[in-house]
C-alpha cells in the first residue's frame, strides 16, 4: 500500500525527491562543523599562517599556542578553578536535591505539594536580576573572591531543576521498595542512599550532566563575584583574553579550544544521554 502511495507521490524517482531535504541537513552540518574545524586547525598556526592559509591543515602540528595559553595567560589556573567549582556544585546539588526530593515525592506529609511548588518556582526565577542584593549578601558572608561562594550560588540556582527531575523519577518507583526495607529495619537515610538513589541513576546522570554544563559555561556570576586573577574561571578568563590578545589569533584560538575541551569530550561520550535528557527535563541555560 505504502509503495503505491509513494509511486503516486513521486513521479520522478523517490531518491531524487529526497535530495533537497538531504542538502538542507548537510548544509547545516557544515555550518556547525566548519567554524569548529577552523578553530581547531588555527590552534596550530601562527597568526601569519592563519592569514596565508585559512582553511588548510597547518604546516606542522606545533603546540606553542597551547603552551602559551596554558602558561603565559594562566589558563591552567582558570581551568583548575572551573573544575573545582563545577565538581563542587554538581556534588552539592545532587546530594541536597536528592535528599529533598525523596520525602517530597514519597512521603504523605500534607505540605509536600506546597514545598515542591516553592522549589519548582525557582526554575523560572531570573536570579541575575537579584545580583546586586546577591553581591551584598556574598560580601557580608565574606564569599566574594571565593570558589566556595560560586559553588553555593550555582547549587542554589540548580537545586530547583534537580529537585524537579529527582521527584519525577522517584515518584514512579513502587512503594514496596521502601516498605520492605523499613520492615527489615533500615533507616530513612539508608533507604534513600542505598535503595532509592541507585534506582534513579538516569536522574542522577541527567542532573549531573546539565549542572556540569551550566556551571562550566557560566560567566555572569564570576564576572560580578571574582576580582582576583587567581580565582577566575575559564569563561571569565576567556572574555578578558579575547580582547587582550586580539592580535595573536593562534593563541586566542588555542585558548578557546582548551576551554571547550572538557565539554567536547563529555559530549562525545554522553551524546545519547544528553539528547534524551533534553527530552526529560529541558532546562539547559
Amino acid at each position: 500500500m505504502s509503495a503505491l502511495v509513494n509511486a503516486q507521490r513521486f513521479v520522478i524517482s523517490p531518491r531524487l525527491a529526497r535530495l533537497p531535504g538531504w542538502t538542507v541537513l548537510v548544509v547545516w552540518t557544515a555550518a556547525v562543523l566548519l567554524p569548529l574545524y577552523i578553530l581547531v586547525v588555527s590552534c596550530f598556526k601562527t597568526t601569519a599562517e592563519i592569514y596565508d592559509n585559512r582553511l588548510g591543515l597547518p604546516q606542522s602540528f606545533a603546540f606553542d599556542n597551547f603552551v602559551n595559553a596554558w602558561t603565559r595567560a594562566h589558563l591552567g589556573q582558570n581551568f583548575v578553578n572551573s573544575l573545582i567549582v563545577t565538581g563542587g556544585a554538581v556534588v552539592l546539588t545532587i546530594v541536597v536535591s536528592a535528599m529533598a526530593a525523596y520525602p517530597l515525592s514519597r512521603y504523605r506529609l500534607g505540605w509536600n505539594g506546597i514545598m515542591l511548588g516553592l522549589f519548582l518556582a525557582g526554575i523560572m526565577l531570573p536570579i541575575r536580576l537579584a545580583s546586586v542584593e546577591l553581591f551584598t549578601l556574598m560580601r557580608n558572608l565574606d564569599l566574594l573572591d571565593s570558589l566556595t561562594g560560586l559553588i553555593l550560588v550555582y547549587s542554589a540556582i540548580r537545586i530547583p531543576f534537580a529537585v524537579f527531575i529527582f521527584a519525577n523519577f522517584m515518584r514512579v518507583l513502587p512503594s514496596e521498595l521502601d516498605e520492605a526495607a523499613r520492615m527489615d529495619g533500615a533507616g530513612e537515610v539508608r533507604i534513600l542512599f542505598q535503595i532509592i538513589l541507585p534506582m534513579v541513576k538516569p536522574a542522577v546522570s541527567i542532573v549531573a550532566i546539565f549542572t556540569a554544563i551550566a556551571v562550566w559555561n557560566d560567566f555572569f556570576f564570576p564576572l560580578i563575584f571574582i576580582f582576583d586573577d587567581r580565582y577566575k574561571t575559564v569563561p571569565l578568563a576567556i572574555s578578558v583574553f579575547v580582547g587582550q590578545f586580539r592580535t595573536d589569533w593562534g593563541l586566542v584560538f588555542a585558548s578557546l579550544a582548551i576551554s571547550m575541551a572538557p565539554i567536547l569530550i563529555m559530549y562525545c561520550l554522553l551524546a545519547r544521554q544528553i539528547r534524551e535528557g533534553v527530552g526529560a527535563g529541558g532546562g539547559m541555560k
Partner: protein
Amino acid sequence: MTNLRRKSSLKRTQQRMAVLFILPALAVYALFVLYPLAMSLWGSFFIWKGLRMVEFAGLSNFSRLFVFPSGARLYGALWHNTAWFFGIMVFQNGIGLLFAWLLFLRDKGAAFFQSVFFFPAVLSPVIVGALWRLLLAPGGVAEWALNGLGLHQGSLTVLGNSHTALGMLIAVDAWNWMGLPVLIYTAGLRQISGQIFEAAKLDGAGNARMLLSIALPLLMPAIGTLTTLSFINTFNQFDIVYVMQGVQGNPSYSTDTLVTYFYRLAFGAEGAVGITDIGLALALGTMLFLILSIGTLMMLRFFDRRTVQL
C-alpha cells in the same frame, strides 16, 4: 491497634525526617535565590546611596526609568530584546522545525544529525561569542570567504555597523541553540501516532500538507515549551552581547539589551565610570521580573488551551 500505633509513629518519624531531608536544599535555595530576589524587589522602592538603602521613595525609581536619560536606553533595549525574540522564533525555532521534520521523514541518521546540531548548545555562549567575533572580524574567515566568492568586497564590518550588528548577534545565538528545537520537535513528532500520518497519506496529503495541517497542531506542547524557553532566554540575554560587543552594546548601544543595561546601572559602567545607580537598577530589575513572570504565565496558559488532544 498496634498496627495503627505503628503507622502513626511512622508518620511522626516521616514528618521529622522530611524536615531534616529538605532543610539543606531549602536553606541554600532560600538564602541565595529567594532572599536576594525578594530584597531586590523591595529595594526598588528606595533611594540608594552607593550600596546603602537611604529612604523609601515609592515609585520614583520607576518613573525615572522612563524619562531622560534612562528612557532612551530602556526603549532601545526593550526593542532589541523584542526583535531578538522574534528573530529566534523564526530563525531558530522555525528552521529547527523544518530540520526536525526532515529528520522525522527519514529517520535514518537522525541521531547523528541531532548530535551535530545540538553540539554548539553545550558550549559556553562566551566561547561561541568569542569564536564568531574572530570569524566575523575584519580580516577574519567570513570576510575572506565572501571576498573569495565575489559576494562582498573589501573589509567586512558587520559587527561594527549599527544596522547589522544586532542581526549578527541573533544569528550567532540561533547557531548556538539550533539543536534544542530540533531535539524537542523530533521528540514531539515521535509521540504522534504513525497511523495518523498513514491515514493522511492515503487521503493524498503531501509532506508539506502533513506538516502544516497535522504535525503542527499536534506539536503545540513542544511549540509552547520552546516559545516560553526562548522568551525567558531572550530577555536574559547578556553573555553574547558582552563578549562580542562589550557591555555598552556597541556600536552606539545598537545591541544593548535589558540585562546589559541593568548590569551597567548596577555595577557602574553606565555614564560616568564607577558610578552606580542601584535604585534605578533595581527598578529595572523589578520591571524585567514582571515582564518575565507575566509573559511566561500568559504563554503557559495560552499554549495549554491550544493543546490538541486526540
